[in-house]
């Protein structure tokens, strides 16, 4: 258990300290009342002796019991409600902090991490932590108080029997610990085997069409069965041995019960104790061992919960992107003059990618970037949008270094369409107005007509108000790309970045959009990454990139004359 994680958790709970104190007080009341009831019942039973039944006494005691029970019930309910409230709120606060952090983390972090991992931190880890915290609140406090309370009461009534109970109970703890230690490695084997099987299932079912195309069903089933058999064996062992815990602790409890019964009966015979007290002791013997078992479960649970919290904290404490200066420049509607000077950049230190990159773009110029995959085209976009910061050199927009202006104002001046389209779960309209929330319906329709998305949007069940699922749901890749283009045609920012913006759109439709694109790019500085040389040919500047370097630079005619890489590329088509 990491004590620093514990401290951080405590920091999050501080806000709810008064509630927690109330909860602990209620736990005290609850436990005291719960422990008092068996004593009262014992007293009552002592008055039930043949021929000497004292009804008045019994009635008084029973009324007391009723009151105690009501107090316990009410306290218990209030306590659980408070505990629910506090633990859910704490987790919510942590989740919120993590999510907010996510918005200011450098893309470097997000790109390098598996998204599934980040998601599982914010969702499952947080959730498990909530469960653990809740269990800790409700069971750890009451458990500890119950044990201490019971011990106190027992000591008060009979020291010998208490000694017996105290000596025998730890046996169940030892037994439980022993079994869980033994089963740990079995669970490990069983979960590795399960992982192996899941990997096979994902591979085969994920590519079932290929498996079928080569008629490999039988072979895959054999492979699966081999793992399945093994999994059956190891999980039987793990399941069986782990299920020994309950019978064993129950057995120890029974022994405690017998021991109390024996010692108690002797004490009664020797007139050291009344039968009522014995009944009370017997009920304690049951109650006393229960929290012990629970606490050992809770401690494991809490350890687990803290580990989960630790993973969440890791995310919350990750270094954010450099903060903006107070007086950072706010780029208004940019003219579109861009100067890139001596830029160096690498994703990882040992693999330098972009070296000595220089380029100046006049307002309104079109820049096309070409080159083989992995040449650094996407990296240039990352740098222009300031998703990543340059390692050396500078990028200036309208003569101001982009690191001296607010990220928001820089990015608002760019319109970006990427090859990998992204749509949010929501309506088509919500997705289109992302860059211009106050757009009127007329503007939206005009933009969608220009981007040739109007005809298919109109055919959707609810038109612009059609809800789409996560990542566009059932829309085709081409349709999604058309929506992303519409989005930009609506917001019309002064500078454009188009990274394979039409790659999923068939060439005929693309041709129809070209005119609107041309009109949009008029007077706007734009960067275009494309495969199709026809798109590139008309650019003002063509950057030919290879292995992170700009190897050729110029317009179409000039590059052809150079008879270099570009010429070879152009003539090979």
């Amino acid at each position: 258990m990491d004590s620093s994680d514990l401290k951080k958790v405590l920091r999050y709970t501080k806000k709810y300290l008064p509630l927690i104190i109330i909860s602990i007080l209620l736990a005290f009341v609850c436990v005291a009342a719960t422990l008092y009831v068996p004593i009262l019942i014992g007293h009552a039973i002592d008055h039930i002796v043949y021929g000497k039944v004292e009804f008045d006494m019994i009635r008084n005691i029973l009324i007391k019991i009723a009151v105690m029970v009501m107090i316990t019930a009410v306290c218990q309910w209030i306590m659980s409600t408070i505990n629910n409230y506090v633990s859910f709120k704490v987790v919510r606060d942590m989740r919120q902090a993590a999510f907010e952090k996510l918005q200011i983390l450098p893309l470097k972090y997000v790109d390098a991490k598996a998204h599934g991992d980040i998601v599982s931190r914010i969702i499952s880890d947080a959730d498990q932590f909530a469960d653990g915290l809740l269990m800790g609140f409700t069971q750890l406090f009451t458990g500890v108080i119950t044990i201490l309370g019971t011990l106190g009461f027992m000591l008060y009534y009979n020291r010998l029997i208490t000694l017996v109970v105290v000596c025998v109970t730890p046996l169940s703890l030892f037994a439980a610990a022993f079994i869980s230690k033994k089963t740990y490695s079995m669970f490990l084997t069983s979960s590795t085997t399960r992982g192996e099987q899941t990997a096979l299932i994902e591979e085969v079912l994920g590519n079932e069409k290929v498996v079928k195309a080569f008629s490999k069903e039988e072979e895959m089933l054999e492979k699966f069965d081999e793992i399945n058999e093994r999994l059956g064996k190891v999980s039987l062992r793990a399941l069986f041995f782990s299920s020994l815990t309950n019978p064993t602790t129950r057995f120890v409890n029974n022994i405690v019960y017998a021991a109390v019964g024996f010692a108690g009966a002797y004490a009664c015979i020797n007139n050291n104790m009344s039968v009522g007290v014995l009944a009370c002791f017997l009920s304690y013997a049951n109650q006393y061992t229960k929290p012990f078992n629970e606490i050992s479960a809770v401690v494991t649970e809490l350890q687990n919960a803290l580990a989960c919290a630790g993973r969440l904290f890791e995310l919350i404490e990750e270094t954010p992107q450099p903060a903006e200066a107070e007086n950072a420049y706010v780029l208004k509607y940019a003219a579109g003059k861009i100067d890139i000077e001596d830029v160096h950049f690498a994703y990882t230190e040992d693999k330098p990618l972009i070296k000595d990159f220089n380029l100046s773009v006049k307002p309104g110029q079109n820049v096309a970037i070409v080159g083989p995959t992995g040449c650094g085209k996407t990296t240039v976009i990352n740098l222009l949008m300031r998703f990543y910061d340059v390692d050396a050199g500078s990028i200036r927009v309208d003569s101001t270094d982009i690191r001296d202006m607010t990220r928001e104002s820089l990015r608002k001046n760019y319109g970006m369409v990427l090859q990998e389209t992204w749509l949010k779960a929501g309506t088509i309209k919500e997705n289109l107005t992302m860059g211009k929330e106050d757009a009127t319906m007329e503007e939206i329709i005009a933009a969608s007509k220009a981007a040739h998305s109007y005809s298919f949007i109109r055919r959707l069940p609810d038109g612009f108000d059609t809800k789409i699922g996560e990542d566009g749901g059932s829309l085709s890749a081409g349709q999604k790309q058309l929506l992303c283009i519409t989005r930009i045609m609506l917001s019309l920012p002064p500078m454009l970045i188009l990274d394979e913006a039409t790659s999923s759109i068939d060439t005929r439709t693309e041709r129809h959009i070209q005119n609107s694109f041309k009109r949009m790019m008029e007077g706007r500085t734009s960067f275009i990454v494309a495969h199709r040389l026809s798109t590139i040919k008309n650019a003002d500047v063509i950057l030919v990139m290879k292995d992170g370097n700009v190897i050729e630079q110029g317009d179409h005619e000039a590059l052809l004359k150079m008879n270099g890489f570009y010429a070879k590329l152009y003539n090979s088509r």
Partner: protein
Amino acid sequence: MKKLAGFLKGYRKECIFAPLFKMLEAIFELIVPLVMADIIDKGIYEQDKNRVIYMTLVLILLGVVGLVCSITAQYFSAKAAVGFATGVRHSLFSHLLNMSYTQIDTLGTSTMINRMTNDINQMQTGVNMFLRLFLRSPFVVFGALIMAFTIDRRLSLIFVAVILGLYFVVITIMYFSIPLIKEVQRKLDEVLLNTRQNLSGIRVIRAFCREKREIEDFSKKTDDLIFAQQKSGAVSALMNPVTYVIVNAGIVVLIWKGALRVDAGELTQGQVIALYNYLSQILVELIKLANLIITINKALASGYRVIQAFDTPNEVWDENEIGKTDIRTTPEANKTTMVEFDNVSFTYHNAASPALEDISFKAGSGEMIGIIGGTGSGKSSLVNLISGFYDADKGKVLVGGKEINRNNKKEILDMMGIVPQKAVLFTGTIRENLLWGNENADEECLLEAVKASQSADVVESKGGLDAKVLSGGKNFSGGQKQRLTIARALVKRPPILILDDSASALDMATDSRLRSSIRELSYKPLTFIVSQRISSIINSDRIIVLDDGRIAGMGSHEELLGTCEVYREIFQSQE
């Protein structure tokens, strides 16, 4: 559910013994209060120390026997549960493997994977718990009632009232809390969606400066979640206090009535204590039962999902009919009608409009046929019909003069070398992947396929045919994977070769070399090339132009330029 219960058939012995031994354990537990009553009434009041010793030994013995019974039961139930899950997993996997493309499309990959993993695990837990507790808990409850009945018939009425009260409370609380728990799960799913979406769209979100809006959205979702959690928490939190009150009310009444009966000399003090103990036992057992019901509910939900997967019908064929005709040697196979489409129409399951309409053409050995058209024009659907992955709704698809039916599907598939759109390699080595085409292929055959598919340099750069392929082929680039999947198809030396947009990641020069080496293959396959690029199909013997599921034109490049408007537009757009 009946179908699933069938998987327990092989474990009949376990399914009987597990609850039986659990019941024995419960019986021994139920005897304990009686023994204690005896200790009090006989041992203490009659000052009989020997009886106390004797009875204590009985208590210990009961504990030991209980332990043995319980361990035996745990073993049998674990065995039945694991065996059950293993069996279901095998059957479901084999069922899923035998589904047609249409059914794969309907069910969806992630659904299938979830059914295979989470749902079956959930069911294993359910069966295990069911066998262990489902008989035990009611048995303890009713056993306690019967024991009470034997001690004192009138007082046992209190037990009936308490049990009915508890039953009512547990059911009521569950009735209200299960939908609330589901609601919490739904809200949590929404928070999950929000987070995942935020990560996948991080560039767009930052480009549009929507970070603040996203945070607002997220906190709205978490507020919803917390509201649902609190509602469900408040209801569930009632369970403990209310059951506690009911049982203790029972105890209060029991003591009062008990006192009256003892006073009348109809009951002993020890017996009152025994009754009190039975009531406490009922409380403990009912709480266990409530937890059990939640587990069982989850397992049942999983069970229904698994059954749903089983109920998706898979391909069936008549074993006797398979292999009766050898299509490779039919006279048509080597002539101009290796593949024939006769007025074929096809609509995807659940689709509004047909993917292909009135398609007719013939193609013979050695021909190279290009298929071109916009996205969604039906190119992939057409080649999928040739391989029999989908069945035509109207018209006939003939291969080697035989109409494709479910009995000759396997055989026809055997003639096809298919390179699917998505280039997938499987975990293992390059060699193992290539052998998928033909298990008995020799080294020479492999090398020929590697060479023809232009992947000799790929194999060389990875260190030979025995180089490792990681899961998903992630140690290969898109282009490398595409070339190796082409090699895999060529290892088969298939009479019909289908390249479904499988050169998209290759540069033009490699693409062109690939096509000429296919032309030079000694076994002269009938080749279908699907592409969006004119350059990939320009030299084909014939080009089929698809537009919205119909053939817009068919012929050579020159012919089409003259006659087909759609083709001309595509050509001009790529000039």
